[in-house]
């Protein structure tokens, strides 16, 4: 599923004293199967942008073309778009409503009009992906689970629809570090398994650096950078000036360089840093 956004502009509350421009002239192209990280400060327009992708918000002007179909046209059936583009909102556990975990995850697939056996299989698959024990939890009420488990049930509810494009709006906010890493791993597994397009909205530079193929940076409703994490995280000053910064490990590498330890400059994951530092220690021994 390729996505092409052309000259997208969106204005909140037009014609009232509360009028605000949330998005301004956005142009983005996303290839099928890409893993995209969308980052930006609070209020930069990330959430508004992703809601355009499955027609929950209509643009004030501009086009959104998904697989060659312009979804801003009136003739397009939005239910078809929503079937293909799955959206996990912030704090998705607030949308749980069914009596049992099974029924809640099955809600999406049911709306797709699938058969009972297909639904059953999808629920099992989705629960396995988010590492929830099927037999133990299927008949429990989602409201008596822990926060992390609730989040997983809600995410599984969207996974079970098997969207070709999966958009996640800060899926890890408010989770403890361990659950956060686990949830991110699960998203990565899903991407590797189904080769679908994933757009991850995040505040955390670390998560983005570790996972994604391409980073899109937004500021005040505009796209200011788009490129591989390597390219984008080079712009330390600009990123800092808009309140974002780069992964913490990059700061460590910089500090080490100041102490005359010769390392590569474009390091942004802990793994890479480890390799480089080991390399440096070895080469120093040889001298």
């Amino acid at each position, binding site marked *: 599923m390729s996505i092409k956004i052309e000259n997208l502009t969106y204005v909140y509350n037009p014609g009232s*004293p509360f009028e605000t421009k949330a998005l301004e002239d956005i142009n983005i192209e996303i290839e099928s199967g890409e893993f995209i990280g969308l980052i930006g400060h609070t209020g930069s327009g990330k959430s508004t942008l992703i809601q355009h992708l499955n027609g*929950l918000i209509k643009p004030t002007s501009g086009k959104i073309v998904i697989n060659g179909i312009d979804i801003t046209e009136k003739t397009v059936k939005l239910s078809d778009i929503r079937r293909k583009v799955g959206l996990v909102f912030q704090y998705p556990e*607030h*949308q749980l409503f069914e009596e049992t975990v099974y029924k809640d995850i099955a*809600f*999406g697939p*049911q709306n*797709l009009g699938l058969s009972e056996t297909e639904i059953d299989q999808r629920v099992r698959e989705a629960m396995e992906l988010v590492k929830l024990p099927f037999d133990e939890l299927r008949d429990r009420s989602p409201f008596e689970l822990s926060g992390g488990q609730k989040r997983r049930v809600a995410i599984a509810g*969207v996974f079970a629809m098997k969207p070709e494009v999966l958009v996640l709006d800060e899926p890890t906010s408010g989770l403890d570090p361990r659950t956060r890493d686990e949830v991110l791993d699960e998203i990565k597994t899903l991407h590797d398994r189904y080769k679908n397009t994933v757009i991850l909205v995040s505040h955390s530079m670390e998560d983005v650096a570790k996972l994604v193929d391409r980073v899109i940076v937004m500021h005040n409703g505009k796209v200011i950078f788009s490129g591989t994490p390597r390219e984008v995280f080079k712009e330390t000053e600009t990123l800092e000036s808009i309140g974002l910064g780069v992964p913490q490990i990059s700061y460590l590498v910089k500090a080490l360089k100041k102490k005359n330890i010769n390392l590569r400059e474009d390091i942004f994951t802990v793994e890479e840093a480890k390799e480089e530092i080991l390399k440096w220690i070895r080469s120093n021994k040889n001298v």
Partner: protein
Amino acid sequence: MFKDITIGQYYPTGSYVHELDPRTKILATLALIVGLFIINTFVPYIYIVAFILGVVYVSKVPLGYVLKGLKPLRVLILFTFIINVFMSQGDIIWSIGPLNATREGIYKALFMAIRLILLVVGTSILTLTTSPISLTDGIEQLLNPMKKIGVPAHELAMMMTIALRFIPTLLEETEKIMKAQMARGADFESGNVISRAKGLVPLLVPLFISAFRRADELAMAMEARCYRGGENRTKMKELKMDRGDTIALATTALLLVILVVHRTVL
């Protein structure tokens, strides 16, 4: 989808009307309502319309924005109109089946419709020009003398403040949950009455849960800050009437006098 609701939405412009003491505006609104019920012919409507237009002009709120508040009530107004046309006794001028439209009916229906429209417009000026907080402050002050006969003025005002405060929050929440469920393929718009009602379950359950959660959190936060009712509570903003308020009250009183005179003398 909730953007059309303008009743009760504060529209800040910082005008003379906005600066008035909330008590003045509440009293003036009450006077206007009384005035609307004093009159019994079409002519005095001219005074009231002129008064309302004048206030809207001074308040700098666009007239179109004020009238938008009528939109959600158009069915009610139309319904009252039709009922009045057909349910009055008098000269029959037109009939379908057992229903008879009378001359008196049409007269009464028009009269009622105008009264309803002016009621809505008049009261929405109050909420458009007064922030919810100062509005409840005003109500509390006005109810204060009633404390002696056991009216819990402060509690009532606090309940209103909280309720008003959470209307936008709950609307936002509703919209958010609706979007989340729509993203999971829920359909809120098509189908017959029963399937639509069923379709609301995925919206209402999370909404109730979050409302209770919010209420719980708010109660906790208030207690953590030692909130305890109205006894000996001081105000950050003391309400004060000044010359502007006197002028506004005098103008309203004048309107009321004119209406009474029109009714009794003419």
